[in-house]
């Protein structure tokens, strides 16, 4: 199995505060890797380091074989990112958003046109191509945001709490999209607060107070911590946290 994300003792300090302490893990190609933790545990910081938004304080990390310190430009070409905040432009239409994000990733005009058609078809949004994004229901927006984050066919996509505030049916549909992408060989690195979503992941890591407290498949974790569900496993670990959430 090809390893696409590898970190060794990856650390980020903000002054005296250690947000991420010696994180070591690796993620394989095509894997859906769940990155769990309570608020303030350091998930977002870790993800930002991997995306090249933050420089690590210490440790090593490679994304698709490229170093996060020196080769961020190469990394940027190969990853997609969907942030916690909804990240499409409200005042642009569905098609304009797709075209814009395809464009800034340097896709050619015909490639963008073809991709736009395919995405609209996949999302069944053909009729809404010219609708402004602000007029779409939240669930649709979220699915569109995911599709846009992988519009340039990246090998890895980072999803930072992609399903916050979305109803269960839409979340289910959203995960169908994630599975479809993973089937095509896209590696999914996802943070979430929904424990049912954790069950959908191939492997899950749980961060507590800046360190990785557990890392395995959901089944193995449930056995290890003697919980019936990921919910219980998470609770078991997270309640030991000393840091207050944000």
């Amino acid at each position, binding site marked *: 199995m090809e390893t696409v994300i590898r970190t060794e003792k990856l650390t980020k300090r903000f002054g005296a505060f250690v947000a991420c302490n010696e994180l070591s893990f690796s993620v394989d190609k095509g894997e859906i890797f769940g990155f769990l933790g309570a608020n303030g545990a350091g998930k977002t910081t870790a993800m930002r380091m991997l995306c090249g*938004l933050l420089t690590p304080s210490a440790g090593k990390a490679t994304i698709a074989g490229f170093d996060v310190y020196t080769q961020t430009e190469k990394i940027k070409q190969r990853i997609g990112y969907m*942030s*916690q905040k909804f*990240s499409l432009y409200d005042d*642009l239409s569905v098609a304009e958003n797709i075209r*814009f994000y395809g464009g*800034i990733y340097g896709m050619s005009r015909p490639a963008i046109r073809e991709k736009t058609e395919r995405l609209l078809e996949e999302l069944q949004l053909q009729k809404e191509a010219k609708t402004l994004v602000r007029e779409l229901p939240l669930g649709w927006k979220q699915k569109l945001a995911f599709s846009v984050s992988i519009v340039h066919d990246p090998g890895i996509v980072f999803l930072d709490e992609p399903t916050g505030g979305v109803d269960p049916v839409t979340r289910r549909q959203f995960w169908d999209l994630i599975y479809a992408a993973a089937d095509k060989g896209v590696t999914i690195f996802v943070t979430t607060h929904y424990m049912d979503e954790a069950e959908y992941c191939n492997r899950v890591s749980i961060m507590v107070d800046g360190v990785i407290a557990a890392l395995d498949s959901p089944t193995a974790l449930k056995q290890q911590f003697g919980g019936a569900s990921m919910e219980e496993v998470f609770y078991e670990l997270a309640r030991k946290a000393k840091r207050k959430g944000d």
Partner: protein
Amino acid sequence: MRQLLIFIRKEFLHVFRDRKTLLMLFGLPIAQIVLFGFALSNEIKNSHIAIVDYSKDAVTQRLITRIGGSPYFNIQRTLASGDQLNAAFKKGDIKLAVIFPVGFGDDLVHTGKATMQVIADASDPNQATTITNYLNQIVLDFNSELSQGAGQRMQILPSTQMMYNPELRGAPNFVPGVMALVLMLVCTMMTSVAIVREKELGTMEILLVSPFKPFYIILSKLAPNLLISVVNLFIILALSDIFLDLPVKGSLLLLVTGSVLFILTCLSIGLLLSINAQTQQAAMMGSMMGMMLPTMLLTGFLFPIENMPVALQVLSNLVPSRWYFIIIKQVMLKGLGFSAVWKEMLILTGMCALLFTISLKKFKIRLQ
């Protein structure tokens, strides 16, 4: 390059989809020019004035009654000597003072000529001009009445002195002022808001994760505002030519070059603001408080800089609109050429280069 064009296109879409802001952007200069234009021609009634009469003769009595009877004046004080005038002006009790010298009436009867002194508070130049004109009109009427009655030519000559602002920067001052203000507002506010909005939306993160160059983000944000500002510039110039009778006397090219320099300086300030502001409101307040007030107060179009305390005079050197204001006045109103404004142009270029470099350096490639 194509990526840059795609981004710029997106910025224009943002601008054109936001009809309300667009309307405000183009409505603002029009409203300002029209407002100032009409405000200039407004009547001023009941101005408080002081009279110092050293002569105390029949003629001065008649003229004083005449002045007091006019709806434009309200004789606040009749002073025995001119020494108290200064204090009254400083307190703002009076806007104008009339002084009749000793032997005023005798002069008039014997030589057919007499001079009266008129002192106006010109810190508000428009008001000073208007009320002095009212007074001159009263004196003119009085002259012809006297001449008719006496059967010989009698002439009272008002000798006018503008206090606090002898140059009497008045009406034509407003157009350059409005130009500086509007351009400053549009450029600074729109730029900072456009960038901070991406931060608020969370799209800035996405952009920074993408291979799109941060420098291009800045360029794309500046492009629409530059265009809007140049269009605004021409609207203001056209309006002031048509309605206020203030055509561009000098070279239009020179004026536009100076304006573009100023616009770029303001865009850089907007950029700098956006780096520090986290919300659109903060960016908005920053540009309003940080830029609009200094532009109004320290540019010299409302209050003459020469009469300010030294500290403020020094401070005013840092305000870009102060230099731009001089450029417009020299080129547009006086019709002077490059040799008259090269220093101001150079200062603006320096400011622009400095601000742009700083903001470029501070514009974070990484979020923290």
